[in-house]
Every structure is written in C-alpha cells, then in structure tokens.
C-alpha cells in the first residue's frame, strides 16, 4: 500500500491491457504490429518489476524484436502480393489490409458466444489465481542447494543449461525444425523486393554492426553470473543478420546453403555431443563433471548462440536461397 511503485505497477498493467486490446482492434495492420511491439516492450518492463530480468531480456529481444521483424516482413510480402494483382494498391503506404478473399462474415451470435465462453475461461483462471496459495513451495530451495554443483553462478543459466538441459536441447531442436519447415513451405516462392532504405540507414548499419556484435557476445558471456545468456545473446546477434540482409551487404546465395545448414545444426549437434560424451563417462547425460562444468556450459552456450543467431536470421529471410533466374547479385 505504502509503496509508491504500486501506482506505477497499476499504470503499467493498465497500459499493457489497453495495448493488447488496441493491437487486436486497430484497423491498419501496420499499426497493429507497432502496437504489438510497444506491448511486448512494456511486458518486458513489467517482468523487470517482477525481478525476472532474464525473461525480460528474452521477451524484448526475441518475443518482441525478432517477432516484430517477422511480422513486418510478412506484412511487406502480403502488401507486395496484393499490390501485384491488377490495381496497384494506392500510394503504397496507405493501402490497408492486403486483398484477401473477402471472408464470410461470422454471425454476431457466434462471436458473442465465443466472447462469453472466453470470458468464462478467463474468469475461471482469475478465480483460480486469486485462490491459489501465495508463494507456494517452488523450486527455490532445491536450486539454491544445487547451485554450487552447476558450474555457473547465475541460477537461471544453471537451470537452463544444467538442471533442465533436456528442455533446452529440445528448444534448440524446435528452432531447427522451424527453419526446416520454413524452407519447405517457402520453396519456389518469389520474394517481395527488399525495400530501399537509403544512405542514412546504410551509415547506421555500419555504425551499429560492430556494437551489436560486442553486445551480443557480452550478453552471452555475462550469462554465467548475471542476467543474459545464449538466447538473449543469440537474438542480439541475429540482429546483425537482419541488418546485413536489409542493407543488402549480404545476399544469400545458393552456394551458402551448406554453411547455413551447418550453422543450423551446430547448436543441436554440440549440445547432443556433450551430453553423449558426459554419458559415456558413466554419468547421467547432463551431469557434467564439476571441474569442467563451466567450460562445457560455455562451449554449449557459444555454439547454441551461433546457431540461434543464424537460425533467427534465416527465419527472417524465409525462403531458401535457390538459383532463381533473376538471382540478385551482390553489388557491394
């Protein structure tokens, strides 16, 4: 009650809910994406208030940054496709939704029923949340007891890469599966021409690139004792890929597919290999020997970071680079 930050919390919570509503109800799809990005950043701020800086970093970098870039890329593609058929959509920027086949309007009754149903679910969740015992037992004590054996000083990194390493391995596999799926889905799809961004943007990219590399590596390294780690660092490094792709300083060519595939698999392979090596020494799969734990964790994190960065950039680029007749040659 006495804490003045409660007012801040209330305002932040209200604006988060308002932005969620606004991003779903605003007409223009571009505005929707912008509102969503603001929503994600404010959620990250809320998670900082809940003393979860790791999660906030991941949400800001991956959940908002990379997702926002993916959404904008898709919107660009949709507008390109819609503009390509017959009438070019107005003056480019002001064209609203891409000309999808006009959907059959859903009866108001169905919408109302759905909304009522969702409201009931939400109400049930809220009641369950309010009735739940505050501060249940949790895993705090277990993790705190086991931390000296983990090889790192930061609990979240310890949980991610040591105690629950299977989860993280599967997570890297999911990313790998996603990029395989995207390459398959987009096979033979022609790409919307990349927007021309101008000289200021080129200069910005040149200025920002080295800084981003340093920050990404720092985030990876600092993950051992402070908030940060493979996923946050990987997402920041993926921004390098995005900048390179958007400035056309790097144009993916078919010949680079082998390297790209290698980079996609690198994280999973290194992770699995370490697990197998540890297991072959008569231990359980992720029970690192204590004297090597930090080295092994950093090795895995490094490989996984590289893999995540390349995979996220590839997810942004989408289409597998195949030899198209109009293959855009590199001109820098």
């Amino acid at each position, binding site marked *: 009650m006495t804490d003045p930050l409660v007012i801040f919390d209330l305002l932040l919570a209200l604006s988060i809910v308002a932005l969620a509503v606004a991003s779903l109800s605003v007409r223009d799809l571009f505005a*929707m994406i912008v509102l969503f990005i603001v929503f994600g950043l404010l959620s990250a701020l809320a998670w900082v208030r809940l003393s979860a800086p790791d*999660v906030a970093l991941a949400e800001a970098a991956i959940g908002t940054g990379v997702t926002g870039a993916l959404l904008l890329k898709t919107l660009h593609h949709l507008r390109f*496709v819609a503009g390509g058929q017959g009438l070019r959509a107005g003056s480019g920027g002001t064209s609203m939704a891409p000309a*999808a086949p006009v959907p059959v309007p859903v009866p108001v009754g169905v919408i109302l029923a759905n909304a009522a149903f*969702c409201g009931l679910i*939400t109400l049930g969740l809220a009641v369950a949340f309010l009735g739940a015992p505050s501060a249940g037992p*949790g*895993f705090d004590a277990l993790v705190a007891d086991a931390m000296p054996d983990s090889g790192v000083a930061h609990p979240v990194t310890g949980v991610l890469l040591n105690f629950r390493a299977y989860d993280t391995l599967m997570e890297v596999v999911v990313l790998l599966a996603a990029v395989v799926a995207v390459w398959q889905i987009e096979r033979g799809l022609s790409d919307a021409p990349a927007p021309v961004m101008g000289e200021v943007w080129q200069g910005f990219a040149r200025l920002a690139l080295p800084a981003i590399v340093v920050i990404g590596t720092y985030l990876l390294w600092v993950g051992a004792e402070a908030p940060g780690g493979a996923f946050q660092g990987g997402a920041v490094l993926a921004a390098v890929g995005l900048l390179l792709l958007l400035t056309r300083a790097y144009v993916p060519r078919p010949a680079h597919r082998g390297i790209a595939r290698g980079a996609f698999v690198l994280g999973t392979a290194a992770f699995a290999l370490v697990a197998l090596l540890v297991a072959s020494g008569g231990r359980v799969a992720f029970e690192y020997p204590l004297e090597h734990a930090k080295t092994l964790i950093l090795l895995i994190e490094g490989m996984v970071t590289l893999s995540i960065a390349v995979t996220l950039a590839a997810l942004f680029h989408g289409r597998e680079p195949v030899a198209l007749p109009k293959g855009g040659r590199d001109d820098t």
Partner: protein
Amino acid sequence: MTPDLIYGLTGIAVFGIGLVGALCVQERLRRVLALKLCSVGAGFVLVVGAWREPPEMPDPVPHALVITGIVVMVSATAVALALIRRLQTLEATDER
C-alpha cells in the same frame, strides 16, 4: 496490492484478450498475433508464480520455462507466418 497480484491479473486479462482474438478474428496475421498475446499472458502468470517478496530471490525454474516458451513461440510464429505468405501467394496467383 503487490506486484504479483497486479501483474497476475494483467496476464490473465491479456490471455483472455488473446483467446477472444484467436477465436473471433478473421485476418490471418491478426490471429497469429492473438496467439502470441496468449503466450505472453501465460508467461506473465508463470513469472508471477516465481516472484517472491523482494529480499528473497525469485524462483529460477519458471523463468527458464518462460524463456524456453518465448523461443518456441517465435519458432511457431515463424512457421505460421511462412504458411500465411505461401497461402496468400497461392490465392493471388489463383485469382489472376
């Protein structure tokens, strides 16, 4: 009034908004976004569950779970968006 109560209810509200959006919205891009809102709402509830009164450290296990969830969600979003791009292109070439 503590942060966990405020943000827990926020998370549930965001989840509900996302659920309504995922069921009632027609545009594909918006529907993907609604599902993403659901995932953020779920993340809120997990992070709140990990929260402890400030002098105490929060529980790291739910934090790790939410980070995993965020990465899985971005993979799912990327695949969904690729499907949308493909679908839209197919429809556009059909009409021509």
